[in-house]
C-alpha cells in the first residue's frame, strides 16, 4: 500500500510518499504559476526519486491553500488537521504546533491522540510570516539562509517597532543608512518576525511540548528569538519540519485506506 500527501502552500509545494513501514520519498519545490502545475510537478519529482509511477499510488490526500484543485488527490484535509496529525505522528509528546508558513502563521493545539483541540491563525497581515522575512532579507541584500546564519551571531538585535512588514522594511533601511552592523540588523529582522508570532501565541493557552513547523522553522535566528520571546524551548522533530503538512496528509490517506477496505 503506497499513499501520498500533497501540500500546496503559498510559496512552496510539498509532496510526501510513504507505505506502512514509513517514508519512501519527500520533495519540496517553489510554487509554479498554477496550483495544478505545482502539485503535479512536486508529485512527479517525489515519484521519480521513489522510482514509482502515478498509477502506483493507492491513495492521495491534499492539503494547503490549493487543496481543492489538485487533480490526483482523492481526498483533502485542512492544513490545520494535517499539521496536527503530522507533528503528532512525528513525535507523540507534542501538544502545541507553531506553523510559520509563507503567508500565514498558525498555532495549533492537539490532544494526546493527535486531534486538533484549538487553533489560532493570522492570515490578514503578512507580519510574522515567511513572506515578511523574505522581504526584509531582500532589503538588506541577503537570502534567507544567510539571514538566519548571520542573525545567530548577534546578541544585540536592533529594535523594530513597526507592525507592518512594509513599515518594517523602512525601519530596516533607516538602520542600514545609519550604518548599524549587518548582523544586528539581521537579528533584528528575525526578532521582529518572532515578536509577531509570540504576540499571536499570547492569545491561546500553550502546553508543552512545542514544536515549530513550516519553512521559517529552518531559520535559526527566528527560532532562537521566538524561544526567547515565548520563554520556552522547542522540541525538534525527526522529520523535515517544512514537510509536516504533507506528512500529516499522507497519514490521513493511510487512515482512510485502512478504515475502508477496498472492493
Amino acid at each position: 500500500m503506497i499513499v501520498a500527501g500533497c501540500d500546496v502552500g503559498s510559496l512552496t509545494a510539498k509532496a510526501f510518499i510513504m507505505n506502512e513501514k514509513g517514508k519512501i520519498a519527500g520533495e519540496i519545490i517553489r510554487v509554479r504559476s498554477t496550483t495544478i502545475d505545482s502539485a503535479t510537478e512536486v508529485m512527479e519529482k517525489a515519484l521519480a526519486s521513489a522510482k514509482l509511477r502515478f498509477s502506483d499510488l493507492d491513495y492521495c490526500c491534499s492539503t494547503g491553500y490549493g487543496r481543492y484543485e489538485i487533480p490526483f488527490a482523492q481526498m483533502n484535509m485542512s492544513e490545520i488537521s494535517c499539521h496536527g496529525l503530522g507533528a503528532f505522528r512525528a513525535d507523540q509528546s507534542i501538544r502545541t504546533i507553531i506553523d510559520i508558513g509563507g503567508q500565514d502563521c498558525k498555532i495549533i493545539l492537539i490532544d494526546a491522540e493527535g486531534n486538533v483541540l484549538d487553533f489560532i491563525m493570522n492570515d490578514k497581515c503578512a507580519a510574522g510570516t515567511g513572506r515578511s522575512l523574505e522581504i526584509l532579507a531582500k532589503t538588506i541584500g541577503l537570502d534567507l539562509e544567510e539571514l538566519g546564519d548571520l542573525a545567530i551571531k548577534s546578541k544585540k538585535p536592533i529594535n523594530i517597532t513597526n507592525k507592518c512588514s512594509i513599515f518594517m522594511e523602512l525601519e530596516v533601511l533607516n538602520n542600514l543608512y545609519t550604518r548599524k552592523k549587518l548582523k544586528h540588523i539581521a537579528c533584528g529582522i528575525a526578532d521582529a518576525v518572532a515578536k509577531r508570532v509570540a504576540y499571536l501565541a499570547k492569545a491561546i493557552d500553550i502546553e508543552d511540548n512545542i514544536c515549530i513547523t513550516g519553512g521559517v522553522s529552518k531559520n535559526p535566528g527566528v527560532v532562537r528569538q521566538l524561544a526567547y520571546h515565548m520563554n520556552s524551548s522547542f522540541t525538534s522533530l525527526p522529520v523535515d519540519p517544512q514537510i509536516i503538512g504533507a506528512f500529516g496528509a499522507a497519514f490521513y490517506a493511510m487512515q482512510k485506506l485502512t478504515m475502508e477496505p477496498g472492493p
Partner: protein
Amino acid sequence: MITAGVDIGTRFIKVCVTDGESLRGSACEEMGPHFDAIVRSLLKEARVQAQVGRWEIKKIIATGFGGHLVKKAAFTLGEAACTAKATFFFDRDVRTAIDLGGLFITIATIDENGFLETTHINERCAAGSGKFLEMVAEAVGVPFDMISSCAAKSCQPYSFSSSCAVLAESEIISQINTGMKPSDVLAGVIRAVASKAASLIDGAGAKDRIALIGGLSKIPAIKDTLTKLTGKQITTLPIDGQLVAAFGAALIAQGKIIQKKRSIFAKRGAA
C-alpha cells in the same frame, strides 16, 4: 535670498531651489543606500537649473522621514508643516492637503492664515499606500505613468480579499495566472488606495477645498476616484505634486515668512 529644501521621502529624494517668489530649480531621484551622494548631486542639478552659484544657497531645510540624515541642513521639519506652507503659497483657499506618498498618507489641515492645524497619518499598516500601488503595478507589469490609462480600460474592477499590501501582491500574482486582466487589477488597486485615503479624510474631518499632493497625485484616476468617494472638491497644485514638501521646506528656509513658530514646529505623529 536663495534657499533650498530637501525632502527625503520613503521612496524618492526631492530637492527644490527657490528665491522666495517661484520655484527656480528642482530635482528628484529614487532613494538609495548612498543617499548622501544622491542629495549632493540633486542639489547640484537643482542649482544648475536655477542658475545660481554654489555659495548662493544660503540655507537648506530638510524634511521627510529621513530628514535628520541630511548633514548640510540648517534644521529639519515635519513634512506636514512644509506641505502646508507650499499649499498655502499656491492656493489660499485650500484648507486640507492630502499627501499620498510612498508609504505615508499624511493629511494636513490648514487654517485661513496658512498655518498647520492638525495632521493625520496612517501609522500601522501600508495598505492603500503608494508602495502598495507600486508593488501591484510591478506585479502586473504596467509602468507607473501608464497606470491611469490602463485602469481606464477596466469594466470590472477587481476587489481584493486581503487588505495587507504584501498578501495582496501574491493574491494578484495568482489572479493574473488564472487569466485576470491587468486593467481590472489596477482599477481595483486604485479603488483600494482611494478608499483608504477617503477614510482618513473622513477621520480628519477635512474641509473643502482639498489639495491632492505627493507622488500619487500624478495619477489622474486617483483624483477622480477620490472625488467620487468623498464628494468633496479636490484640486491639484500648479507644481509637480511630488515636489510640494521640498518646495515648502525651501519656502520656510526663506525665514521672513515665519510668524508662528509653534505651528511650524508641529511634530509628526509617526516615526
